[in-house]
């Protein structure tokens, strides 16, 4: 079975631009969460979605938004990029029947210049 997939793997943007990151969960998983991992730190929670609705939001500005599609894939959008948005963006999926075991994708490395 395929794991969580994310695209693109790497991305370079300039300040002020916007970016869209994509995630496909493990087949059968209806919950998708997004995390930001700055170099040298642990992942920080951004959003959780399941059944196409936002179920949780971390302490991130409104420039960050996300959505989930009927096939449970998800997009993370970041507007007006700042240098500090440079990070590894991780997507994780879980089965609603599991306690909380989340499976992470390989991430998208975003560099803002």
């Amino acid at each position, binding site marked *: 079975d395929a794991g*969580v997939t994310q695209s693109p793997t790497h991305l370079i943007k300039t300040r002020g631009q916007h970016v869209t990151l994509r995630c496909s969960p493990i087949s059968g998983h209806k*919950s998708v*969460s997004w*995390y930001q991992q700055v170099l*040298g*730190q*642990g*992942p*920080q*929670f951004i959003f*959780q979605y*399941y059944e196409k609705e936002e*179920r*949780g939001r*971390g302490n991130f500005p409104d420039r960050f938004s996300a959505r989930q599609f009927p096939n449970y894939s998800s997009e993370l959008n970041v507007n007006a990029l700042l240098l500090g948005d440079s990070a590894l963006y*991780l997507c*994780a999926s*879980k089965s609603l029947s599991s*306690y*909380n*075991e*989340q*499976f*992470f*994708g*390989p*991430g998208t490395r975003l560099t803002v210049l």
Partner: protein
Amino acid sequence: GESVGLHLPTLSVQEGDNSIINCAYSNSASDYFIWYKQESGKGPQFIIDIRSNMDKRQGQRVTVLLNKTVKHLSLQIAATQPGDSAVYFCAERGAGSQGNLIFGKGTKLSVKP
């Protein structure tokens, strides 16, 4: 506030020795904890989890211990191998949340051959 931290940022062990990675958490209401392994350039990989109603849980070569009295979590790796070299994160489920995990900064484990 909620936080998960680690006592040691780096740990170096000899191949074949046992490794112990420690983690402190601050939210006594957290009821679920996970250890992840992250290799360079990859997303976090689930190792083992434990619920707060347990003190110990064993997996293949790994054991997680939970001491709720002092809010301490540890990961023990038996017969450490070079392939165990990675950054290890503990994470807790945020109180009252359905999906977001709170990660610590991580411990880098280096295994010397």
